[in-house]
């Protein structure tokens, strides 16, 4: 029964791909002449699975990036929105299990952190191709914050897209002076019960907030860098859960429940149920004001004891049938023009994943001329107090620990 079912499944999945040139063989593409790759990709399609919770990001990808791909290369970009990146990894994993090695449904995923570790752990990524991309020269692989994804070496298995650093946001019309550090925030919560909450991990942003408290409880991030260490974890975790359980009755809804997503927290903030929200991507606050979700009095800010920063990437699964088109897509994403467009506050306003000083002079000038949305904190100012991400082992342990010790 099983081999028949798999054969049928494989057949049904592979038939549409057979119509066009099959570019599933990654090793044949590596080191290939770029023009040849572009010709192989021309007229094809590429399925990009990415978190779909932001209309502006979706518009940039579908309209701008999709437009460039169609106009310059005749490639159709299918953007598949996800609420959780793990969904895409589950698809690739299921395909690998069913023996689908060259006709997968996923050609590219927007990814970082634990999900990247999972892809590497299960051998789901296509690696070693980055040198083939012409725009690879714009990437600073000597920067450890780019060559390591949450402490896991990238090893040519993905390419950077954006950089991001966590920031808080408040409404100047409602809150006079926001707390500028984790200890100040904890005091503020005690003085203003019911006005703060955070999304329950495993929500991405909620988990980052918990890590800020974890760093604070551990007396700084220095002792947490490197491989996961049970003894050091236990010491810091106990203090973290004490802090979070102590403030729990003072949170929104007396801590009886937590928002389950950052979207929910943003909604509570917009409806004035809570005084703060936060995001790993501070440009979201400017976009929120532009779309009318937040009033113009909303401002974002960093902490004096630092906020966590990361790089996010795009990855190509081992079984993507459209690797040539995926390479062209990655090269477009890395291009100076696309990174500039993405940096415009009305488009997205995110920090580039490439080195701006390696781009042509006119692009550099355009970058320098970008006027930040007034609600978005200055990335340079934010970067003065940047904290590193931990290795994935720490992150899973903290999320699990929160669910067991605080969430239930």
């Amino acid at each position, binding site marked *: 029964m099983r081999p028949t079912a798999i054969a049928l499944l494989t057949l049904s999945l592979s038939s549409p791909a057979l119509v066009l040139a099959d570019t599933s063989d990654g090793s044949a593409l590596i080191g290939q002449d770029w023009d040849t790759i572009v010709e192989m990709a021309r007229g094809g399609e590429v399925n990009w699975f990415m978190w779909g919770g932001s209309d502006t990001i979706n518009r940039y990808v579908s309209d701008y990036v999709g437009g460039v791909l169609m106009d310059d290369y005749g490639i159709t970009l299918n953007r598949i929105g996800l609420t959780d990146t793990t969904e895409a990894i589950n698809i690739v994993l299921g395909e690998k299990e069913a023996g689908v090695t060259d006709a997968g449904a996923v050609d590219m995923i927007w990814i970082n952190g634990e999900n990247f570790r999972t892809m590497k752990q299960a051998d789901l990524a296509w690696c070693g191709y980055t040198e083939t991309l012409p725009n690879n020269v714009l990437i600073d692989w000597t920067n450890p914050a780019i060559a390591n994804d949450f402490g896991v070496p990238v090893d040519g298995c993905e390419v950077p897209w954006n950089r991001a650093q966590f920031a808080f946001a408040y409404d100047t019309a409602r809150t006079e002076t926001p707390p500028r550090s984790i200890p100040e925030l904890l005091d503020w919560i005690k003085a203003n019960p019911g006005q703060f909450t955070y999304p329950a991990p495993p929500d991405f942003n909620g988990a980052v907030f918990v890590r800020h408290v974890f760093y604070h409880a551990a007396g700084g991030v220095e002792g947490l860098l490197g491989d996961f260490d049970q003894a050091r974890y236990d010491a810091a975790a106990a203090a973290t859960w004490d802090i979070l359980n102590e403030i729990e009755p003072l949170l929104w809804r007396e801590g*009886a*429940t937590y*928002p389950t997503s950052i979207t929910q927290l943003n909604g509570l903030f917009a*409806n004035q149920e809570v005084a703060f929200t936060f995001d790993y991507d501070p440009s979201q606050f400017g976009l929120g004001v532009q779309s009318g979700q937040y009033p113009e009095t909303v401002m974002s800010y960093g902490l004096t004891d630092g906020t966590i920063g990361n790089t996010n990437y795009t990855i190509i699964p081992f079984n993507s049938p459209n690797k040539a088109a995926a390479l062209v897509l990655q090269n477009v994403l890395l291009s100076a023009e696309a990174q500039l467009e993405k940096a415009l506050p009305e488009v997205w306003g995110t920090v580039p994943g490439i080195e701006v000083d390696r781009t042509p002079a006119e692009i550099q000038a355009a970058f320098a001329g970008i006027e930040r949305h007034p609600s978005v904190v200055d990335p340079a100012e934010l970067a003065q107090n940047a904290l590193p991400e931990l290795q994935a082992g720490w992150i899973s342990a903290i999320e699990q620990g929160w669910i067991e010790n605080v*969430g239930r």
Partner: protein
Amino acid sequence: MSESLKTFVRLAPTLAVIGLLFFGGLIMGLMRSVNYMPVIGLTEPNLDAYRAVLSDPDFLRSFGLTLHISLTSTILSAVLAVGSALLLRRSFAGRRLATFLFQLNLTVPHLVGAIGILYLFSQSGSFARLAHAAALIDRPADFPALIYDPYAIGIILQYVWKEVPFIGVIVLANMQAIGQDYEAVARSLGATRWQAIRHVLLPQIWPGVLSASVIVFAFTFGAYEIPALLGASYPAALPVLAYRSYTDVDLASRPEAMAMAMVIALMSAVMILIYTRAARRRGGR
């Protein structure tokens, strides 16, 4: 070719799709739930995932919550549906309009209904704003917590809103097919109106009410989207818990996710069994 064979051949494409996709998925899920997943190195089948899930207090609490959501929604919907059907079968001016309005939200998707409930009943929703305008409350937190609440009031509200017309339409059709003659006879023999309903009408519509209710119960027990949108962070409804476990970054927790899914599937299977027995009873009369 005999008549039954012909019918079978005609049904074959449908059966093949159901068989392959449904049972194929079910079998894959079952294999994963017993820790058989060669792709990540799990080749020795065992029942560890079931043992872990069934002894996990989180799972048991989620199971209890889901049972509460399904039972409460189903009973409330069935009672309201029978009551509405009794009113709607009478003849009165504007009956057509009333029946149309009654059935209207059958066409509205569950998700849309959930967003509507959210906008109306959340602590910063329309009713909270009205209450604030009427100076009944000072702050959003003063409005009673009906969404994301431990008793799943928001979820049950949404299900009742959606399922009352579903059961109601079935029961109404049932009542109209039966007609009012039996009740009229009972009344003529001295039964009160309530006695006629209780002892004559209800036994006749009972199998219909039961089978519609079983469908509602099975659906609400396995549905993900409404508890995901309107539920509290803890405890989560069973499908939400299973999904969270399925999207856990740790691949080792996939078997537990599948074990939970199998428990949900088992509950639905039991419901289908009850349904077919009820349907057979109805058909037998």
